[in-house]
């Protein structure tokens, strides 16, 4: 089970991030979580939103390079060792995590971690086997 992340290529120019948030606001899109990876020259903004389709359209219309990326969203207990347990499941099988970021949602006692793993299917199988709870795109959007 995978979820959808919206990835945006951003040059390191002042005001560029504001343009992203304006475009999303204009499209009635709510941001659930975000993560920014950057070099000196540019960055990639990764977004979890309630309405990925609308988000992509709004950003493309605003002239951004934007792509949908399949990610794995795992719900985990919001307590010490919560993330560690999930990461161990994946790396224990030799799978490589490209990146991850986590956020604390409004779902009871749990937090959500977003994974990008090169071998997504294998990762899903491993996580399932380990009893991790993965969120669908719809569940993620509804947080």
């Amino acid at each position, binding site marked *: 089970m995978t979820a959808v*992340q919206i*990835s945006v*290529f*951003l*040059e390191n120019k002042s005001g560029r991030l504001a343009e992203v948030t304006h475009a999303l606001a204009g499209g009635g899109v709510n941001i659930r979580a975000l993560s920014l*990876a950057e*070099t000196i*020259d*540019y960055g*990639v903004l*990764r977004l979890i939103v309630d309405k990925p389709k609308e988000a992509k359209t709004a950003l493309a219309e605003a*002239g*951004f*390079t*934007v*792509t949908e*990326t399949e990610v794995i969203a795992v719900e985990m207990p919001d307590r010490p060792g919560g993330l560690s347990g999930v990461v161990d499941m994946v790396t224990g099988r030799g799978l490589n995590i*490209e*990146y991850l970021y986590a956020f604390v949602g409004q779902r009871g006692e749990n937090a959500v971690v977003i994974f*990008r793993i090169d071998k997504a299917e294998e990762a899903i199988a491993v996580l399932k086997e380990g009893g991790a709870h993965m969120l669908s795109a719809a569940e993620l959007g509804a947080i």
Partner: protein
Amino acid sequence: MPESAPCWNHEAEFIVPGALRALQSQRLAEVVARVYESVPYYRQKLEAAGVRPAEIRGIEDIGRLPFTGKDDLRKTYPFGLFAVPMEQVVRVHASSGTTGKSTVVGYTREDVETWAEVIARTLAAGGTQRGDVVQNSYGYGLFTGGLGLHYGAELIGATVVPTSGGQTKRQVQLLGDFGATVLCCTPSYALVIGETGREMGVDFKDLPLRVGFFGAEPWSPGMRQEIESVLHAHALDIYGLSEIIGPGVSFECLEKDGLHINEDHFYPEVVDPETGEPVPEGEVGELVFTTLTKQALPLLRYRSRDLTRIFSEPCGCGRTLRRMERVTGRSDDMLIIRGVNVFPSQIEEILMGIDETTANYVLVVDRKPRGMDELEVQVEVSQATFSDEMSKLEALDERIRSEIESRLGIRAAVRLVEPKSLERSMGKAKRVIDRRDLGE
């Protein structure tokens, strides 16, 4: 001053203008006859232009000859314009061309001697003589700079230190240890040597360095002042292009007021780059050269694409060889970066071969204060293939960088930018932003 101006070949450099014209006329007739006889490509070109060699009697007839361009060299790549059998070619050099293929030039033994002669004139005009130590930091190899200066310095009888480029700290060390009195390199590298020396605690005032010959890239009067104040030596300009012979086509004397053209070997014209018609004397246009004495690769009316003017007012040094102003621009889009010719089309070709980018790019050339020329290639990331993984974007960066380095021999910084973010004009995109201060 005229009597004391240092020179290498007084007879040639102080020749009476009438005698020079007679010599040029005779040599022009000879070279036209020679290419007609020996180079099928030129024979066709001359016939197409309706010119028979016998009709070219003197320099006044030069306007009847067809132009030669880089395109002709490309079509005949690699040796098709050579006028002698390969057994007589003792050397080839090559520089990058507008597309994948290099511009290849050849030399007979006599050509190598001619080249050494014009370089000897160049070096002697700055006072170089037997007993001088010449540190030659031009690159040795296919590039004409290193070997070109080398042979001229040896002809004079100076002691050559062939350091070639790079390893700047060692360059500074050797300048001091071997007591170089003469330095040859690009003007931007001269500043790098100066800056490195400063960092190493070297005071150039204490070194015997007296004069430098700086060329292979455009520079400004401001840069001359800076080099002279940093190195405590005269900074003289030297001009050339490999197609004609390499460095040594023209040179500055210590008057530092224009470059004397070795016009007994290379006949210069200035034409309107659009129409090809000669411009009135003293006006700016495109430099065109006819090699009057070259054996291996004689070229008729070669379009240099360099823009400048020629003037014949007497020079304070007394030389009668006419002078050209330093080159201030190009009639095509070629860039000279650290002595390497770069055409935007070459970069485009590389980018077209990489799926993840569009062919939208901008080249930014900059020269930091006291630094070398820097090339930055700004490339638009393609919407279709954009990856959100930094490792892949960085790998793309690296791939473009290494392709440019391996194909063009120049290091460039690569900057990925958003699609449609590069400035586009109506029609032709602006491909080059040159921030180097090469103006007055």
